[in-house]
């Protein structure tokens, strides 16, 4: 998708900016907005670059740094924390050989902490894209990762 297309779809008024940026970001290979993207959003909406960058830097679902194809967001708030979300983090870091806040060498996965995902009844939980995974165990994590690896080859 092009920045222009996203704005065609959502509309060019300032209130459509966030939605358009989210939709556009989803279609980028590295899940983020480049400086050029932000400048183009600014140009196309007539908003100042500083304002568009301000918005892009404010929301945690928007990123201005390159990320992996799949972003694994691990909830680390109290309900998950008391249900051993720390183990989920360790498990993910070991399996993916990377650290929280970083991206795997193959560019497939990024690990991020997330604020509460609203899945506290199935703690510990994580989200990848639009999919929510709860009651995480080592086995479940492993199968979720395998599923996404498979998907990436399709």
């Amino acid at each position, binding site marked *: 998708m092009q920045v222009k297309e996203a704005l065609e779809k959502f509309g060019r008024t300032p209130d459509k900016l966030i939605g358009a940026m989210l939709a556009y970001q989803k279609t980028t290979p590295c899940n983020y907005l480049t400086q050029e993207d*932000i*400048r183009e959003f600014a140009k196309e909406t007539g908003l*100042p*670059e*500083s*304002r568009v*960058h*301000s918005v892009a*830097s*404010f929301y945690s679902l928007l990123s201005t740094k390159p990320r992996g194809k799949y972003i694994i967001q691990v909830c680390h708030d109290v309900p998950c924390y008391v249900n051993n979300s720390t183990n989920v983090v360790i498990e993910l870091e070991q399996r993916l050989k990377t650290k929280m806040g970083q991206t795997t060498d193959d560019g497939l996965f990024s690990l991020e902490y997330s604020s509460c995902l609203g899945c506290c009844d199935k703690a510990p939980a994580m989200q990848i894209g639009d999919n929510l995974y709860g009651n995480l165990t080592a086995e479940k994590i492993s199968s979720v990762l395998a599923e996404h690896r498979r998907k990436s080859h399709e």
Partner: protein
Amino acid sequence: MNMVNAKINNRAVSVPEGTSILHAAKDTGITIPNLCYHPDQEIKANCRVCVVEVDGCKTLQAACATSVREGMVIRTNTQKVRQARKVVVELLLANHDMNCTACKKNNHCGLQEIAANLGVRESRFENILVHREIDTSSPSIERNQNKCIKCGRCIQMCAKVQGLAILDYIGRSGDVEVKPAFGWYLGDVACVACGQCSVVCPVAAITEKEDIERVWEAINDPDKTVVVQTAPAVRVSIGEEFGLDPGAIVTGKLVASLRALGFDKVFDTDFTADLTIIEEGHELLERINHGGVLPMLTSCSPGWINFIEQYYPELLAHLSSCKSPQQMFGALAKGYYAEKIGKKPEDIFSVSIMPCTAKKFEAVRDEMSIDGKNPDVDVVLTTRELGKMLRQAGVDFNQLDEEDYDAPFGLSTGAAVIFGATGGVMEAALRTVYEVVTGKTLESLDFKAVRGLEGIKEAAVDLNGTIVKVAVAHSLSNARKVMELIKSGKAEYAFIEIMCCPGGCIGGGGQPFGGTDELRLKRMDAIYRADGALPIRKSHENPAIKKLYDEFLIKPLGEKSHHLLHTKYKNRKK
């Protein structure tokens, strides 16, 4: 007007509905500390040093943001209030470089003053400042984020008054920073160097680029003849640096103080302001008579020049080719004056005292050098820097006896003085153009329609039966409106004056800190008083100007003028 009654610290007050607690308290003699509040800006209420107790409210209330309501009981000096204010200041200091003695704003800083008043001697919190590089990329202003308290005043100024929005909050929570998009250097973005952000910054996070040392060096250099020019607006504002009332006219003391600093010759930019009127007036008539591009736009405000070059380059043909008075002066200092006193241009060191930060940028433009090597104006100092320099030298400004400018660039007119206020260039031009064209003497020299703080002003004059419409705009958000009008073909004006800064140069980005509309009006009033008090009030009647043409320039728009006093502006779109 509806009045509401309330109690502040047990004293009854009655104020018009809608009055903030901050103002109501002030009326009863209580100053509530504030940092993000600015009288000309929207309420931001983010610094939280102005909190007060209001009976019936669960939390403390921001005095700047809360209107007095009927029956309100307000306490501004309780233990709770004092503690909260103190903690807020300590929190700010704990993310700050706390280096007051070596700070550019030492003794002129809102945070420092409030900390001192509240008795904060240290911050009990751990200092968490992550040092950031100081942005020195702009020739005009410097951004030191290590001092920023994130009050947002600069953001509002740049976005609302100048309409540019170069700065914004980037990031969130503890990561929030106030900076240009992508953290780019100011020198790399379409900042016009107006320095308005620095005028409203309560701390030393945005300041003018300081060039004082280079001036001292030149003064100490026995081989240099150091000449200085003073802009019209400086004489009504420099007094503020020394505790005088805003609007005090201190021209004579200003001259004396510069001599005291060791400048060899003290000249007046007003002289070249008169010259500008002659050149620009003839250019206007030339355009009117020979089908040139109209409306013609003034070119004496370098912030405005930066704006049109970067944002409306397609309209550059409308711009007068005249250099600004500062640069005309620089060219004459090195081209005419050097010759006159038998020196080489490079032996002249030319300094200007300006109310403006954009002038620093203008002075280093490649075009502004008559020999292509040395700048015509070597250093531009702002009003604030002159204040500092005088303090460095221990000059007791208020004690000085008044002195006169040096010849040959010392004599000027009321028309030149009013260059300092929005509408002044227009009024000065009208005084001259009218008399040159009609051959009649103006009955009243005051063109009141173009005076005052209204954003866009209009007037019309009858030049031998032709009605010429003119307009005046100040601040770039207004300039933008005028540009759009021109682009849409709806601007039926022959001549438009545009000043980058609100109020014109008296509200320039290099003027004493803390500029407000109230202050601008006082300075403006002083400008017109100074004009009224001068014996000659029309540029074309300045005998020194006449002499300059006779001796050297020969005629307006002539070959020498073309070489020294005019220039070309260019597309610098980013």
